[in-house]
């Protein structure tokens, strides 16, 4: 019985802690002074170019394929 009570108390404690943590994480507190902003995107140049090349190539190839299929039918 004692073990059962201990287990129940532990479970309640865990639940309570989880609820507190849940409430805490639901709010976003901000200190008075924010950090310095990230105001540059130029380092994404290579990534952006690669993504544009890939998505552009896929879109063009898809359009080419579909237009040919439509012409055949």
């Amino acid at each position, binding site marked *: 019985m004692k073990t059962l009570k201990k287990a129940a108390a532990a479970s309640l404690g865990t639940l309570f802690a989880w609820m507190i943590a849940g409430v805490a994480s639901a*709010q*976003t*507190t*901000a*200190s*008075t*002074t*924010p*950090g*310095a*902003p*990230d*105001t*540059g*995107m*130029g*380092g*994404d*140049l290579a990534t*952006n*170019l690669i*993504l*544009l090349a*890939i*998505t*552009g190539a*896929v*879109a063009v*190839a*898809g*359009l080419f*394929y*579909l237009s040919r*299929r439509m012409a055949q039918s």
Partner: protein
Amino acid sequence: MIMRNQLINFAIGVVTLGAAGAFVLILVHALWYAPEEEAAVVLNASTTPGVPQSAASSSISAPIPHDTGMRLRIPAIGVDAAIQDVGIGKTGNMAVPTNYTDVGWYRYGTKIGDAGSAVMDGHVDNGFALAAVFKNLDQLKAGDDIYVDKQDGTTLHFKVEEADDYPAADVPLQQLFNRNDGQARLNLITCAGEWDSSAEAYDHRTVVYAVLV
């Protein structure tokens, strides 16, 4: 067989549309529109808006309403930009404007023209490394003029006191956001230095300190 071909065509159509959509989104994000999701903040209702608070405070003042349609002009570097309100980003940093041509005024800080330190940020470049509004901010020097045009037709005239370059981790945030020596200050900040791919940001910041004349 016909059913199978239709399915293949449908799948290729979906992929094509998805790729075209992604292409447009990447292009728009890199060149024109890059909104940053802002964090929800806990407001301290008892705090008077506009009064800089101590760093020990755990919450921030309510956002300060400001005139819409204000513009920032810096003739020395050819800046004439609309001013957006910005708050705090998800990372805890000051948020940035939604595009590369406007500047952002920190709405939880000092109102522009009031005693204290009003802060504005702007991009140095866009996703294609092309010049953005604060590309040449580091060229400002003491004595250069900065103007804020208000919608009521009046203009606030600031003069640059100094321009400094700091490692990103060493920006004097208290001086930037909270200095209040009784003067109306306007501090401008943008990125500088080299791209740090691990942090996905530049490793320095240029800060220009100006004071109302």
